[in-house]
């Protein structure tokens, strides 16, 4: 027979389970809500508006790495890094893609501000690595990559 004490313990367990199932994913989601406006931005001014940041300033402390000429625009390896401390977020932009923003990395203290990935490029264009600093400064480094075969059409 189920006693009152067992019932209470059990309902507490169920509540705890529901919390882990229901509430925790929500909290995680709220922390990193997908910024659709930023990913649909076509120009730098749209993008800075969508992210609520000031216009980027060129900086020598950031570097963007990539090939000078990319044979296949569908896979262009690029990397962004900076030696500066206090970076909050790093963005990778491709100027002439249908949407500029490719990737946005939220940096914590525990990772290096250095990322490499591969992007698609529709045509030869400038690529930017933008660093959003904790003090509100926005810095960028640019590099031109020539593409001989575009990766966005069909």
């Amino acid at each position, binding site marked *: 027979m189920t006693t009152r004490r067992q019932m209470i313990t059990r309902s507490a367990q169920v509540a705890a389970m529901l919390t882990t199932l229901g509430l925790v994913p929500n909290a995680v989601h709220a922390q990193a809500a997908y910024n659709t406006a930023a990913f649909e931005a076509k120009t730098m001014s749209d993008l800075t508006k969508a992210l609520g940041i000031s216009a980027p300033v060129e900086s020598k402390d950031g570097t963007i790495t990539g090939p000078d000429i990319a044979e296949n625009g569908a896979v262009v390896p690029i990397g962004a890094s900076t030696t500066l401390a206090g970076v909050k977020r790093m963005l990778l932009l491709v100027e002439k893609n249908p949407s500029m923003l490719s990737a946005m*990395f939220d940096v914590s203290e*525990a*990772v290096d501000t250095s990322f490499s990935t591969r992007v698609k490029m529709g045509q030869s264009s400038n690529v930017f690595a933008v660093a959003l600093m904790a003090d509100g400064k926005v810095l960028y480094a640019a590099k031109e990559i020539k593409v001989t075969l575009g990766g966005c059409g069909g």
Partner: protein
Amino acid sequence: MADPMRIRAQAAGDKVTVRVLMSHEMETGQRKDAAGKVIPAWFIQEVTAQHNGKTVMTAQWGPSVAKNPFLQFSVKGAKAGDKITMSWTDNKGDKRSDEATVS
């Protein structure tokens, strides 16, 4: 569910370099199929990296990240034997999470 990610995490000094290869179509929503219809966008939107259960990096991606995305980053203060967990969510709500041990 999508194919597993390939994760390699190697310790060098006080840092661990993590390389991840995810298996995903990363359809841009710009391409058209043979019948001229636009193929709907399907891409990874959110990526999370955890070191021993603590989130160290989150990223948001657009459709212009290449097919079968590659990502490299390094985690400070990690050592051999630590766990690196990567997870992603795509715009259709699909999820995938994989774990690797630092070597």
